[in-house]
């Protein structure tokens, strides 16, 4: 029954869910014990996910650490339980492990229904890990949908403001997107010559799916997948759920949402749209890049107007995720050889934005915990009352606006290198978004942490040790990627190489 089984990925993916199950049957009593149990589990999962990253061999087989056995086999329908990582997913698995631990630390102040809270948080982590490692479309979709329930519960129960509205909006948007994906998955499955949900088959260029045998036009399939991933990314004009969900979610919810769940959209675009539909991506690169540029600029302009800290970061995410689309659109290079800069930049942007935004949300969470407001107008001069939080904000803000030697710089630069070769004018427009980013980030930091301090904040205290742990973890990762990015870019490059090679083979064929 087992075709292959290494076990490491299965354990990494399901450890949080098993822990959640143990919590649910009531092995632990007392909020304190439950919190530290969650820390233990996610720390263990982080170690495992780092192990996945470390054991992934560059230049080896494309997919490694496979776990695979038959799930459904009736003759006409075949699906398998199939996990594996390549250079694209291995770093994202590590990112999920890192942010999972940070989210638990950021949740220490949650006081009501603690057990349920950590159950949902742990289930969420399993779902996201599963999305990044699943190599069977049915399993991929399963994890993709599984993530909705915990997130819905986290926002609607432990959120603030119009939490039930925001949770439902998040849910309906995502389900609508994934409904289109479901049609596409089914259509790919019934296309003659496929007959399987195996994603690795579809990723081999020229072996599985081509226009002559597809059940729906290839362009339709491309856009059906694109809509599902664009909602998740999110891209203008389907981004409207994000500010609401972010603003009303609890801190850990925002960290997971911005840190890893948006990355599911980017991962899907790279894995499915770029990996399985290279020709369609080349054909439709222009609309994709235009959507990206609109997201970058629109997101940045709207961000400038925000006075709520969380809403501000949420809109900045829309802006930064637009860069992913520009990076992906770089494949439409005219003449010459396609370099991997754009695609690697898009993948890097997923990773760096995860850590940067994660840090920003953790820091906002601490500020909100102490001041009970997120309104920038009411804050000011917090820096000398909360030096650790201020440093965290400065660091993440600087990385977010692309300061060299911090991680954001690397990914943005790569995206622009790649994008410029394909669409020079549009890329230059997008660079304007970075200038706006400098505006809103510095403006926010200045209003919040510097300037005159209202008297009521005089007795504020700085982050506690527990608060400081996620701050330190994320800050280290931001600097580590910024100073020496090669350890990460090389892995991404390894994962994206087959796609780039496919294009170059095609390009060479066209010029001949």
């Amino acid at each position, binding site marked *: 029954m087992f075709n292959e089984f290494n076990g490491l990925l299965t354990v990494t993916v399901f450890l949080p869910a098993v822990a959640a199950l143990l919590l649910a049957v009531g092995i632990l009593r007392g909020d304190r014990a439950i919190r530290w149990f969650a820390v233990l589990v996610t720390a263990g999962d982080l170690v495992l996910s780092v192990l996945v990253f470390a054991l992934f061999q560059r230049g080896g087989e494309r997919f490694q650490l496979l776990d695979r056995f038959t*799930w459904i086999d009736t003759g006409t329908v075949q699906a398998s339980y199939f996990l594996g990582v390549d250079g694209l997913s291995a770093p994202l698995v590590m990112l999920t492990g890192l942010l999972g631990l940070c989210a638990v630390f950021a949740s220490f102040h949650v006081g009501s229904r603690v057990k349920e809270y950590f159950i949902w948080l742990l289930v969420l982590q399993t779902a996201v890990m599963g999305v990044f490692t699943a190599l069977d479309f049915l399993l991929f979709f*399963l994890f993709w*949908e599984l993530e909705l329930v915990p997130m819905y519960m986290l926002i609607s*129960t432990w959120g603030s403001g119009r939490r039930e509205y925001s949770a439902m909006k998040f849910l*309906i948007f995502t*389900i609508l997107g994934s*409904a289109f994906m479901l049609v596409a998955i089914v259509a790919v499955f019934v296309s003659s010559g496929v007959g399987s949900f195996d994603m690795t088959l579809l990723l081999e260029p020229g072996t599985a799916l081509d226009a002559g045998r597809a059940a729906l036009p290839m362009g339709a399939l491309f856009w059906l997948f694109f809509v599902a991933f664009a909602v998740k990314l999110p891209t203008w004009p389907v981004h409207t759920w994000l500010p609401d969900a972010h603003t009303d979610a609890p801190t850990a919810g925002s960290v997971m949402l911005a840190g890893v769940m948006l990355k599911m959209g980017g991962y899907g675009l790279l894995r499915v749209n770029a990996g399985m539909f290279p020709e369609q991506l080349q054909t439709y690169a222009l609309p994709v890049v235009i959507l990206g540029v609109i997201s970058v600029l629109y997101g940045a302009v709207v961000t400038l107007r925000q006075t709520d800290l969380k809403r501000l970061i949420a809109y900045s995410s829309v802006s930064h995720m637009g860069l992913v689309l520009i990076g992906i659109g770089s494949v439409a290079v005219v003449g010459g050889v396609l370099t991997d800069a754009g695609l690697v930049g898009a993948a890097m942007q997923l990773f760096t934005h995860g850590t940067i935004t994660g840090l920003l949300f953790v820091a906002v969470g601490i500020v909100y915990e102490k001041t009970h407001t997120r309104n920038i107008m009411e804050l000011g001069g917090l820096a000398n009352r909360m030096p650790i939080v201020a440093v965290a904000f400065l660091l993440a803000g600087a990385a977010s606006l692309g300061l060299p030697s911090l991680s954001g710089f690397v990914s943005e630069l790569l995206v622009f290198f790649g994008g410029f070769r394909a669409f020079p004018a549009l890329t230059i427009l997008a660079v304007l978004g970075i200038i706006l980013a400098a505006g809103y980030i510095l403006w926010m930091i200045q209003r919040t942490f510097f300037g005159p301090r209202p008297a009521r904040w005089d007795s504020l205290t700085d982050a506690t040790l527990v608060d400081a742990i996620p701050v330190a973890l994320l800050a280290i990762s931001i600097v580590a990627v910024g100073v020496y990015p090669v350890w990460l870019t090389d892995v991404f490059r390894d994962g994206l190489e087959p796609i780039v090679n496919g294009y170059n083979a095609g390009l060479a064929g066209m010029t001949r």
Partner: protein
Amino acid sequence: MTAYDLYLISPHLALAALALVVIVVDLFTRRTAWLVGVSFVGLAAPAALSALQVAEISGSGSGGLAAEGSVVLYTLSIDRFSLFFNFLILAATGLVVLVSHDYVQRMPRLQGEFFALMLLSATGMMLLVAASELITIYIALELTTLPLAAMAAFLPNGRSGEAGMKFLIIGAVSSAVMLYGMALIYGFTGSTRLDEIAIALAGAPSSGFVPFGGLAVLLAVSLLLVGFGFKMSAAPFQMWVPDVYEGAPTPMVAFLSVASKAAAFALVMRVFYIGFESLEGDWWILLAGLAALSMTIGNLVAIAQRNIKRLFGYSTIAHAGYILVGVAAVATTSGGADSFGPSSVLFYLAAYTAANLTAFFAIVCIGNRIESDEIADYGGMIRRSPFLAIALAFALIALIGVPPTSIFIAKIYIFAAAINTGESLMTWLVIIAVVNSVVSAYYYLRIIKVMFLQPAINSQRVGASWPVNVALGIAALSMLWLGVAPGTLLAAAERAVTVLAGGS
């Protein structure tokens, strides 16, 4: 009629005999436990006889049932297809019998009749899934419907009486219309047997301009669909559904929503795939239209419902629509060999039975204790009864069609069959279906939200007796099992529909 024929219909005879036994038992005891016990244990007899017949067909038994099944007196086809539904109907009946244990306390003087009528109706359903001749179909349909109409009116209140009356009258009208269609078919083909009808229709002269090749056939098929649409609870023949669902006794509604529906779909498949096989290029469009209408009406109107039983009435209309997508998907233009439309319908019906029974059993328990079916009164149910609330939540998630539940696999399977037809109309139908699934998420999740997030009206615990809990447990476990390991049942469904392929 030979002894062998008697053996072939022995499951039906055993079930009908059981109904009589229950009435006799009712004369001697007033204890509900006895009635439930006799009914439940007695169901083992038809189930065992059906299992014996399956074993013979599979070749592992000793008898002589052929792989394509056997026909009794040209009226009943005992084959893999009918046996598949026998098990589905018997399982649903058994679980509903168990769950009725608490509920029938509301009708102290009519308990025996309640169980006996349910068993008689189940007999009608088992006949219906095997019937391959029009008169038999009509009789089986009436045997299915009349006991249900009586059961709908069992509660001593006006709503229940209204439900029974509505079910009876609309049922009678739709059977009359259907009977007219049957008469037309007979007049046109000269036979009431489905296999002979198929031959006659295939050889009939046809006018290419009129759908189905002739106005008489067009009219007949449409009239038949009216009757079948009533039983399937498909729009636009769904008017009775919400009222009956709201007013009738909840266990009977659970029974109606799964067993009766499954039998109706089995009937539609047998009549259309075998009897009207040569016309499939025409009728699939008709069924696709019904599917789109049912899904959309069911889901849109369900949003506005406050009563959970009424909401499930609209939900069942919507699910009839999804299933019809699978029924319509048989008419492939690319040939029938690789079409998995029929098997997807069978799997969907089984998955829907498990999920809907789980939901209804939880509703029976909760409604019994809090004496209300208003969704607002479900507030804080997670604290008052974690078991019921979690079971109901899982069933609702399954009904949305979200993985890893049974209906998700079923939907994948149906959509795959539909896209596989290569008709662009069917692709659009799939898109309508998935958009409808999104709409349905809203109202299903609202119930979960009320149960999990809103405060409880009081902290009184909500529980049930052990037979009810056992039934709920079995239904919930089979729902989860079908989602995690659907392979066995999918394979059984694919084997069952082989008798439909390639005509009579």
